């Protein structure tokens, strides 16, 4: 009996050690970036794991100024924030009707939206379209584009959730005299909080981290968000690793906070995709 117990203990320890070693593969690069963001330029150029002689907290205030990070942060918040609201509201509304009415037309519409989950975006002609609408290089244009990119996933995400809400609830609300808008916004939509939070977190992450969309659609550097400004900063200061890393840490920080708070919802969103 004792032998079995020690064997189990050894097994568990090996298991733990193995997973720990694997997790170092993720943690080491992150440590490397954080520690080097706190060094002097000369120290950071040796690209070592060592601690800095003196922690250079000033790097952060310097990079905020040098890379205009306050403006970039504002741009990111504006673009990610507003686009998320647009795709959630439009996506949830469309998905509701599509899941409640199972006629041919509505099924075809669902597939029409579903295509956007698979097929890649043509950014070249998207730029032409925005130009045609006089929206190129504007916040409105990029916000509408981010919003659009989120729609297929949200239609898909909400679709499954609506099926779990009994239709009797709709009927009761109709009998009580709700208008269509009241039925949806006052009765149904509030029931979908988990889906909505998942959509909020995932689409916010997506828009914040999106590099390629602004690369094609925004040529005005003053309107770029944090992710795209890092790329430009990297191009201009490709040897100042301490500054680049400080810029990276500051860009990742808001995302990290969102990740830790919203992890549960990110996971349920990614796992929710399995059911489809």
């Amino acid at each position, binding site marked *: 009996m004792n032998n079995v117990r020690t064997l189990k203990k050894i097994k568990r320890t090996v298991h733990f050690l193995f997973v720990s070693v694997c997790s170092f593969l*993720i943690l080491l*690069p992150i440590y490397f970036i954080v520690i080097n963001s706190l060094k002097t330029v000369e120290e950071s150029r040796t690209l070592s794991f060592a601690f800095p002689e003196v922690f250079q907290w000033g790097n952060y205030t310097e990079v905020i100024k040098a890379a205009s990070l306050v403006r970039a942060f504002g741009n990111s918040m504006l673009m990610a924030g507003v686009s998320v609201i647009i795709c959630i509201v439009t996506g949830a*509304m469309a998905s509701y009707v599509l899941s409640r009415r199972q006629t041919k037309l509505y099924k075809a519409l669902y597939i029409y939206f579903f295509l956007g989950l698979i*097929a890649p975006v043509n950014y070249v002609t*998207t730029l032409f379209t925005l130009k045609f609408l006089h929206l190129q290089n504007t916040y409105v244009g990029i916000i509408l584009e981010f919003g659009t990119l989120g729609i297929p996933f949200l239609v898909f995400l909400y679709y499954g959730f609506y099926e779990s809400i009994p239709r009797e609830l709709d009927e009761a609300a109709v009998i009580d005299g709700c208008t269509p808008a009241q039925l949806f916004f006052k009765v149904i939509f509030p029931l979908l909080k988990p889906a909505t939070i998942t959509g909020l977190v995932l689409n916010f992450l997506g828009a914040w981290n999106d*590099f390629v969309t602004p690369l094609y659609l925004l040529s005005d550097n003053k309107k770029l968000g944090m*992710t795209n400004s*890092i790329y430009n900063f990297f191009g201009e200061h490709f040897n100042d690793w301490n500054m680049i890393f400080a810029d990276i840490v500051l860009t990742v920080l808001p995302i990290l906070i969102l990740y*830790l708070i919203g992890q549960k919802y990110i996971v349920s969103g990614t*796992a929710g995709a399995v059911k489809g």
Partner: protein
Amino acid sequence: MYKKKYYGLKFVVPAFILYTVLYIIPTIAGMIISFTDWNITRPGVHFVGIQNYINIFQSKGGPYLASISHTFEFTIITVILKTLLGLGLALLLNKGLKSRFVFRTIFFLPYALAPLIIGISFVSVLKPDGPFNTLLTAIGLERLTHSWLTEASTALGSTMAVEIWRMAGWNMMILLAGLQMIPEEYYEAASIDGATAGQKFRKITLPFLRPSLTTVIVLNTIHGLRVFDIIYSLTGGGPGGLTEVINTQVFKEFGLGRYGMANALNVVIFIITVVIALSMQKALRGKESNE
């Protein structure tokens, strides 16, 4: 009866307009433009039929065929390794360890970070005098050190490794969700019947995991074919075009103002993605229902 009024099309209209104007119309317009010689360095736009496609398959005007084959290579290898590593991590972190939730958070973390930022970070990590080589040297593997991103033999493989680093944890999360749907009783019954761990894995775990495996394989494939940020930031397509993929090629053609060709390449990646994703979905799902 009340259906028409309460579930009216007007609820679909806002999403429909946005999606049609900013996604479907550009996609269709791209297909039309792909049959033209639109090039900002030359006046006039003419229909040239499938000339752009012929040029692509003869690699005339750019390393088009090479970029298509790199895209496939990148996709196939990353799909296999992401899925296998994700499965391994999921099995390791499904139960047993008390600290499994902390580990899950760690492995899943890279998914939340921008691929571009990961790319820039790994430019430093993979430098000849960077921390990865330092680490290899420290554990006595000095002969394995490389100038990872600039040597012809390692450049494409390095971009794959970074992509796998980024997405293995995401695969783990989806597969974990699948693992948790397997009723514990199946394993208990199998144990009573004297099944080995391998038998249990093949006869219980894998069949139950099929839907989640289908999902990750199809999505990994789509992600692989679409790759851009990681390669653009790590190698920019170099050295000597050896890591050029379709989407970096599209961006180059776009930058040169060769809109006809940029769109033809876009159509190629569009068709490849849709055909592969749909047929994979069918094939993997099909097997599932046969059993």
